[in-house]
């Protein structure tokens, strides 16, 4: 068993007494690609925001690399690379300037910084566009640069919050390949999405979230076993997901119509 990279214990977030994340507990080991799957509004992004200390939990505990995030977050910040759902890059800066800026925030300087910028841009296939202004980039290029800005400081834990929203299949495929490559190089990955095929393609373990709770957790095979006793079943992850979370439209379910 590898080192525990992330441990959540009874993690809860309430807004006006409504729990958007409800007593979540899980452990993620070093070297995993952990998928957090759930419909819109399931609480995936809120959970990731709490893991990154961007949102204060109402209750529960987050432990990163053995440190309590509430008290020792500073010690583990440089080990985390967070790729938010929204683009977090300056349109009026060049590609290399963006990567340089966000990598420098982790105290990397001089030649080491220059090398890190080049490596990050090469990793996402944007080295030849390093002098281009981001405002002129396509959606897929911006998404790739968004990733480059989070990996310059070589984090051990990469948190992707729906990184493929609104991009073309080629860019999506490229990003998924790069996530697998980063994992092979030693990074632990947490990947949140509501795209089943993406999770199925890259994740070694999956947690399915619905209404703020984890309804199932395990490998794809383990999840299938949870919903059918047929050992020869070739259920897809989507079928498992729908079985576990129901087919009701989320806005109907939440709106009470």
């Amino acid at each position, binding site marked *: 068993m590898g080192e525990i990279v992330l441990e959540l214990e009874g993690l809860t977030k309430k807004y006006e007494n409504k729990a958007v994340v409800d007593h979540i507990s899980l452990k993620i080991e070093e070297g995993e690609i952990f998928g957090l799957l759930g419909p819109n509004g399931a609480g995936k992004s809120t959970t990731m*925001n*709490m893991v*990154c*200390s*961007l*949102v*204060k*939990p109402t209750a529960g505990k987050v432990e990163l690399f053995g440190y309590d*995030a*509430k008290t020792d*977050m*500073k010690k583990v*910040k*440089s080990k*985390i690379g*967070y790729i*938010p*759902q*929204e*683009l*977090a*890059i*300056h*349109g*009026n*800066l060049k590609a290399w*300037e963006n990567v*340089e*800026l*966000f990598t*420098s*925030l*982790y*105290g990397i300087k001089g030649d080491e*910084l220059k090398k890190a910028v080049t490596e990050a841009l090469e990793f996402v296939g944007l080295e030849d566009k390093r002098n281009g202004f981001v405002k002129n980039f396509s959606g897929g290029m911006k998404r790739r640069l968004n990733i480059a*800005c*989070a990996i310059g400081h070589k984090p051990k834990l990469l948190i992707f919050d729906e990184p493929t929203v609104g991009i073309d299949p080629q860019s999506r495929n490229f990003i998924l390949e790069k996530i697998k490559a980063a994992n092979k190089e030693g990074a632990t990955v947490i990947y949140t999405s509501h795209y089943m095929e993406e999770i199925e393609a890259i994740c070694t373990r999956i947690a399915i979230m619905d209404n703020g709770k984890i309804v199932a957790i395990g490998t794809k095979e383990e999840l299938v076993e949870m919903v059918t006793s047929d050992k020869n079943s070739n259920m897809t992850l989507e079928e498992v997901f729908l079985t576990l979370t129901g087919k009701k439209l989320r806005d109907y379910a939440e709106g009470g119509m």
Partner: protein
Amino acid sequence: MPFILIKNNLKLMLRSKWILVLMTILPVITIVLLSNAFKDMMDTAYKIEPFEVGYHLSAGSAYIDMIPQLKTICKDNNVIFQEYKNEDATALLKRETVAVFVEITDDSYVIYQSDDKKTEAAVTESILATFFYQANDAMVGMAYQAQNGLVELPSTSSVKVNHEVLATDPVPSSTDYYGIIYIIYFAWCGMISLSAVITSERKSAISKRMRISHMSKFSYYIGKLIPCAIATFLESCIAWIISVVLLDIHWGKIWACIGIMILISLAASAFGMVLFQLFKNAAVSIVAGFIIIWIAGLWGGSFQTYIYANIPQRIVNISPLYYINRTVVEFSTKGYSDYAGRCILYLVSIIVICGIAGILMMDREMGESA
């Protein structure tokens, strides 16, 4: 010091074309418009051209020998002192042959003035009062010495009085005045440069990325304050150079003015940081900032000259722009200013107070993080 953050934020600020235009071209246009619009007002209000004072001396007046001295003193004060032996004072004034007329008798003088030449009459009165006070004093002293046998009574031509030039504050031309004032005024608007960074950060999830990094709140603050001050200073300098080259504006004590401009740039940036964090909305912050600067400018001499303000002095004294405007204009006209100390004190106070408030408010902005 987060140099890379400062460098990249500065790039964002300087790459914003509309901010560059606002900060470099608009001041020059404003200077041209206002200096022309208020040229006549400035001239009639403050400038006294050389003028002529007519005089008539009574026969046998004791002052007859002193008239050449009086003429010299008048000349030093840009006044032509011209004798009219047989002319009527009222007629001379009505014809505007002379601005003021003086009837000098044996032991007194009478000044005739018209309603539209009160300033010239006041200047004449001041010169004559000083002259005759000294002359009488000298004559009394000599008479006393003669009475006591100390000296023989000398002739009145030996009476000497000090040659004094009236101490008045030199007045700038309208081009110099507005040329200086509007470089200062627009430097205060430099906080607008912050919008290039803050809008870009808020439009995307950059603040999330900042908060998850190692960067401290102080670095985050400095990373915006310093580039904003540098951008404001550079843009103000461009406007400054353009206005000096095109409009021939005269600044005095150039290094002191540069120092004041650096302080203004820092103060404007610190003030802007407070507003941007207070309102959380770039447009509202800019509008609020411009309104406050406009009011400070109205009280401090940006729209009518501080020398001729219709606003009560107590209110004028509240505006930091009053001290800054006055200091820099007096550097131009006199080469020094008694207001320089207060100007620097005001600016440093703004930087310190807004700086502390800005950092404390930065705490509030990041309060959601655990």
